[in-house]
């Protein structure tokens, strides 16, 4: 007997591009096309954070856009979940060592789901957003649900190429 997962039936997504190269954004928009069709799960892409439940962020955070990201997050009514799409939004990615880059978006707002990848594949994104929909339902029942832990950076990009 399989346990029935409690998944939110209508998670509305607002998409915010922090500092992305647009690779993840294009893949995310591909999720809405007939091939992947996110709407079959009741997921809608809304343009307005006040109508949204899920904040999908692509790209790393820097000093300039941290305030904007926080503002968009604050405008979403509770309960809300955040999905970090792509490795840049998760940890900063190849830009992590940049002098202006703060790192992943978890430096600014609490993140619930990390979807790594450069760029993340639409299948992985759909999995991530459905996981977020599950967490959304959990948060509605238990408002004290904690965000996910921080992702572990397994390899830091260095200036010198490693000796082969």
């Amino acid at each position: 007997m399989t346990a029935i997962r409690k998944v939110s039936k209508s998670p509305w997504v607002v998409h915010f591009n922090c500092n992305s190269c647009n690779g993840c954004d294009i893949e995310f928009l591909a999720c809405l096309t007939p091939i992947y069709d996110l709407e079959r799960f009741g997921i809608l892409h809304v343009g307005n954070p006040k109508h949204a439940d899920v904040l999908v962020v692509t790209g790393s955070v820097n000093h300039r856009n941290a305030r904007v990201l926080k503002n968009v997050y604050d405008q979403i009514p509770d309960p809300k979940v955040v999905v970090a799409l792509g490795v840049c939004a998760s940890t900063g990615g190849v830009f992590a060592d940049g002098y202006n880059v703060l790192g992943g978006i978890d430096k600014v707002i609490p993140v619930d789901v990390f979807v790594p990848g450069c760029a993340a594949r639409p299948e992985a994104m759909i999995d991530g957003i459905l996981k977020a929909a599950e967490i959304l339902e959990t948060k509605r029942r238990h408002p004290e649900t904690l965000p996910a832990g921080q992702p572990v950076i397994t390899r830091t990009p260095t200036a010198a190429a490693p000796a082969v």
Partner: protein
Amino acid sequence: MIPLNPAIEIALLIVLAPLIGALLAGMDRKLTARAQGRIGPPILQPFFDTVKLLRKSPIVVNRMQIMYAYLHLAFMILALVLLVRGQDSLMFLFIFAFSTLSLVLGGMCVRSPYSRIGSQREIMLMVAYEPILILLMIGLYLANGSFLLGATLATGKPLLLSLPLLFIAFLVVVAIKLQKSPFDIATSHHAHQELVKGLTIEYSGPYLAILEIAHFYETTLLFFLIMMFWVTNLWIALALACASFFLMTVVDNAFARLTSIWTFRFMWTGALLLALTNILWFYL
């Protein structure tokens, strides 16, 4: 049909009307998805959306905004009751117009420029479609000899036969009121972004749900208004209304969004000409 106690009839109507509207909206979304080669959301999706919105925490910009959302809903319900009880058609028009006006005022009382522009466009749309509705009621009077909406039933003659051109003009009004594609310029259905969300941008959570429920009532109201054109036979009336709503979905998918000035010009030339021709017909 068994004559019901008016109080029970009104209570039934208030409970069932939003359910019919939500089902129609769900079928519209499913059909649109199928037309685009997608699987689409379940037909009950509008119910899930509304329940979710009602459970979200409220964020309010100002108190007036909430009052106008409730007024929009209340006047929409009243207009529907007037229609189904066969009351005075002119009073019905005033109440229906005031419901839309409450929505406009709600959009105007916040500082978001998108909301303001959306409200101005909604006023433009009202100016565009109200003459057609007034001519429809005049046509109703000329056909039935009474301004009472219920008089259609008494004459026993389908309205569509005496008002065919007005019916075509009225279908365009339905497309405007249902926010269908060439005319969804003031606000739009979710995921059809125009002005981000136009008129309803500053509403969130339960107050957005109130607007959605009011829109379900409005959908039912328009469905019943179309049924009024063949009120003598329930099955033909249902078929007519379903065919009209199917046409709306097709039009929504076939057309690109146009400007408010274009809508205004179209309504005051093409649609108005059709309606006036139909009125002149009675005097020939």
